[in-house]
């Protein structure tokens, strides 16, 4: 029993940096996972990936001017993400090009620009830091930033829930009864950027999208309603964070990949064992109902 305590609870009780890491990661799960569910349901899973790259040049400019400081890098990332999201969204809505193509174009430009800017100053170690984050070195600024993002995200989700669901389920219907369709789309893209920026301090630009998408993708295999899917994604995200941090602590692994790989394990398990997964849907049932 005691060994179990030492293994599972001890690190979080003993070390302040582990407590901060846990708090930050749990807050991120609560905030990013429901956003990921909607990204997935809107078939925009790869958009999250693209956006995660898109915030790089902004973060890099902050890094170039102020060094490794959370606030300038975050604000820069936010600005870059919003520019790319609005730009890609506007091209998709105002021209014949669809959103996947415009998003790809914008994020590739953005990513190249970001790598270029980072290379102007730091070494490769710095670049790694920006790309892969440092959940074990969250300071108070970073924590309060993540807290703010969580509150804003949950509030926005609560307010726009019905419109978000309607936009996903039947966009033409929403347009026929309300003017909210396009604004809701942009509010949603804003939330995606916001959460990726929050995640990038903890997990880095490349992995923050993992915490957003993997729990959502895993939750899809267990339920066929949106509300439980969001809750389940949050639970999976939080469990992955705890497990990843413990793995990172005990086996001296980098924390970001440990968290994402934990979520990956849950995802693969869900594919196989989920109530809507492979085993449940592919195995021929032995009996069927009469109607």
């Amino acid at each position, binding site marked *: 029993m005691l060994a179990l305590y030492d293994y599972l609870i001890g690190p979080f009780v003993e070390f302040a940096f582990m407590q901060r890491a846990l708090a930050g990661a749990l807050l991120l799960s609560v905030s990013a996972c429901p956003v990921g569910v909607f990204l997935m349901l809107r078939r925009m899973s790869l958009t999250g990936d693209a956006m995660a790259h898109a915030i790089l040049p902004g973060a890099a400019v902050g890094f170039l001017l102020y060094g490794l400081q959370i606030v300038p890098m975050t604000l820069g990332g936010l600005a870059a993400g919003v520019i790319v999201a609005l730009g890609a969204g506007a091209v998709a809505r105002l021209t014949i090009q669809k959103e996947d193509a415009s998003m790809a174009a914008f994020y590739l430009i953005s990513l190249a620009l970001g790598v270029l800017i980072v290379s102007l100053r730091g070494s490769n170690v710095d670049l790694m830091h920006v790309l892969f984050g440092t959940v074990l070195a969250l300071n108070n600024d970073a924590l309060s930033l993540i807290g703010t993002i969580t509150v804003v995200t949950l509030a926005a989700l609560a307010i726009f829930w019905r419109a978000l669901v309607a936009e*996903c*389920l*039947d966009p033409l219907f929403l*347009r026929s009864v309300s003017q909210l369709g396009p604004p809701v789309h942009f509010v949603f893209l804003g939330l995606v950027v916001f959460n990726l920026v929050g995640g990038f301090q903890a997990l880095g630009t490349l992995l923050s999208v993992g915490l957003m998408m993997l729990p959502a993708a895993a939750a899809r295999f267990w339920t066929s309603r949106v509300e439980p*899917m969001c809750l389940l994604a949050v639970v999976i995200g939080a469990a992955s964070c705890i497990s990843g941090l413990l793995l990172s602590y005990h086996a001296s692994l980098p924390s970001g990949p440990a968290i994402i790989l934990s979520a990956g394990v849950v995802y693969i398990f869900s594919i196989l064992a989920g109530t809507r997964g492979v085993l449940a849907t592919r195995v021929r049932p032995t009996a069927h109902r009469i109607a």
Partner: protein
Amino acid sequence: MSACVTFEDLTLGYNSHPAVHHLNGVVRSGSLTAVVGANGSGKSTLMKGIVGVLKPIAGGCRVAPRVKLAYLPQQSELDRSFPARVVDLVSLGLWPRRGLLGRHRIEDREAVAKALSSVGLEGFDKRPIDTLSGGQLQRTLFARVLVQDADLILLDEPFNAIDARTVTDLIGLIKRWHGEERTIMVVVHDLELVRQHFPEALLLARRSVAWGDARKTLAPENLLRARQFHEAWDNDASWCAPEDGRGDAHAHDGSGKQPPQAEQADRGGAA
């Protein structure tokens, strides 16, 4: 009889090619109109124009103030893989009443249940929408229109790929709405169905060929005239002159194919 929708020299289209051309007329409040015509004659485009999702190239389409509108599109953008139940989809129809934030009350839930039973889907409320058959989905969408409680109902080819019994049920619903003094426009291909069940019809061939009493509108000479219209876009069609736009001098419309009576039939329908 007051006007519910007024078309004033309405031209709708894509890339400056008209799909609905210089349409004039009035849809009376409480009327039940079938919109007929060949593929590409502008029926769906007209619906989109009334809803407002397509802006006119020229002219205007006025829906009377404070008219609540319900629209069932031909090509629904409904995402059937979305994790929603029948009751969730039908509850979307509460939007005009409750909007973004208004709580769904007990009477709202009762309205949804009543709508489901009106379309013969009692007991389906918890079913995921990706398990519905085509006919069941169409019944579900009719239930949503019921819940919307609209004054103007636009149905774009609601009977496509629907079995005879379901068509009969849905026609029954449309007649019920007609009895409740709602204004209804339905895009239909089955002319026999129109003759049987619809008091009025609008025959479109990009422009209005005839509009009025359904049987008269669907008379052989009108149908023949509608058939003479050619569907393909002529990329190099000359520009429609703003001054004599309503005359018969349309080089791109096949000049001379439309005798002046057609215009009169328009006005006859509007009167």
